[in-house]
């Protein structure tokens, strides 16, 4: 077969497979729906606030519950020594109460 033909064929195949990625993903999402619903139910029933991304430290396991000071609980000069701390940022951006001052109520769109 002519070189350009075989190349274009392979390229077309690859491109087609990449297109199939989206189809496969869609089908997979459908198939995983029950699992997703189960997880939602668990979050609701158990009142979970975080998903399990890392079990290294309490502020990487429950990042939304941790404060900026949580990492320092061991020692004021505690340097970050958990690798997951490099990509998990603890604590929500703003909180109400406890020395942070009362923030004005946000207008939600």
């Amino acid at each position: 077969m002519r070189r350009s033909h075989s190349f274009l064929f392979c390229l077309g195949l690859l491109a087609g497979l990449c297109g199939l990625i989206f189809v496969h993903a869609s089908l997979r999402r459908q198939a995983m729906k029950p699992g997703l619903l189960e997880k939602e139910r668990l979050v609701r029933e158990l009142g979970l606030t975080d998903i399990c991304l890392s079990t290294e430290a309490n502020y990487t396991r429950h990042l939304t519950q941790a404060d900026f000071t949580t990492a320092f609980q061991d020692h004021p000069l505690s340097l970050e020594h958990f690798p997951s701390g490099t990509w998990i940022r603890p604590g929500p951006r703003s909180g109400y109460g406890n020395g942070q001052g009362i923030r004005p109520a946000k207008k939600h769109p």
Partner: protein
Amino acid sequence: MAKGFDRQKNILDFTLSSLLRRKWKNLALASVYTLVVFLLASVMFFSYAIKREASILLANAPEITVQRLLAGRHSPVPLAYLDRIKDIAGVQAIRGRLWGYYFDPVVGANYTLVVPESGAPENGTIRVGAGVARARSLLAGDMIEFKTAAGDILELEAREFFSADSELVSSDLVLLSADDFLAISGGAADMVTDIAVGVRNPRELATVAEKIAARLPDTRVILREEILRTYDAVFNWRGGLLVIILAGAMLAFIILAWEKASGLGPEERREIGILKAIGWETSDVLLMKFWEGMAVSLSSFFFGLLLAYIHVFTAGSGLFAPVLKGWSVLLPEFRLVPYIDAAQVAALFFLTVVPYSVATIIPAWRASIVDPDSVMR
């Protein structure tokens, strides 16, 4: 029209012959390119899928969480606080939660202990997540020893397990009864870990939160929207690890493109001269260079993308696991639901294919506009 196609295919024929001439070098280039795309796309797929799933799942999280902080440390919440919150206007539901961490010295893993509101396991039994089962190689009926606050050993039977499908939320969970939890954690019976509050009208959330904070000044109030926002910020490109990955990938790519952009060698120049001498126009030569860039770019991109998808959504992001694990022992198996952002894929395409093709064509420009007669000399 057909002639246009034929011209493209003819030139592509020559381009492919040309690439095959330096077969190993071009194969190495394509491999590096594929690797870069694979890495970037894997990170892209992984982070987007997790963020998407987190936002879906945690939309079910408690609307308001109230925790108590003393000197910057989490402190148990007295039950009396529940009463003080209960009569705030707008509060619909309220409950004190019991949960905490347990470090298992046998395997060096951290578990999250949770006492559910209803349907708690009987005293002496627990329900464990798949990650815990893996860490301790547990089968139904096996016993785990927990050290209590008093210094005794409490043996609990792993009667039930969370499904593997729910690992993303339950992997390290140990569900147990309130009595067992209090025995292990040594907490007093009139204290809870924190309080979860439900509100009748979602628009009143902020107001209720403010009131709670005002009534209980030693507490910290967390809204559900803040929980969701936290997860939007995960895998932010400024996070140390991601910066390194991205910088590394970019560096590799720049080196790739540099190799192309640093101009043509004398042999390549001569070859272009020959092509012009035998009747190729400047546009034909540039087209050939375009196809040269495209052939490597497109095939590497598609291949890298495919591998990344397989890696993240079929192979559980196996290559990231050691990185994500860090010092920990327990890590969930990431059976992610494949949420994909097509815009991100398109962006990756343009950010890799376009610069590379440009880097291939531009340096050839000067060589391709030479007078054909230069090859006569």
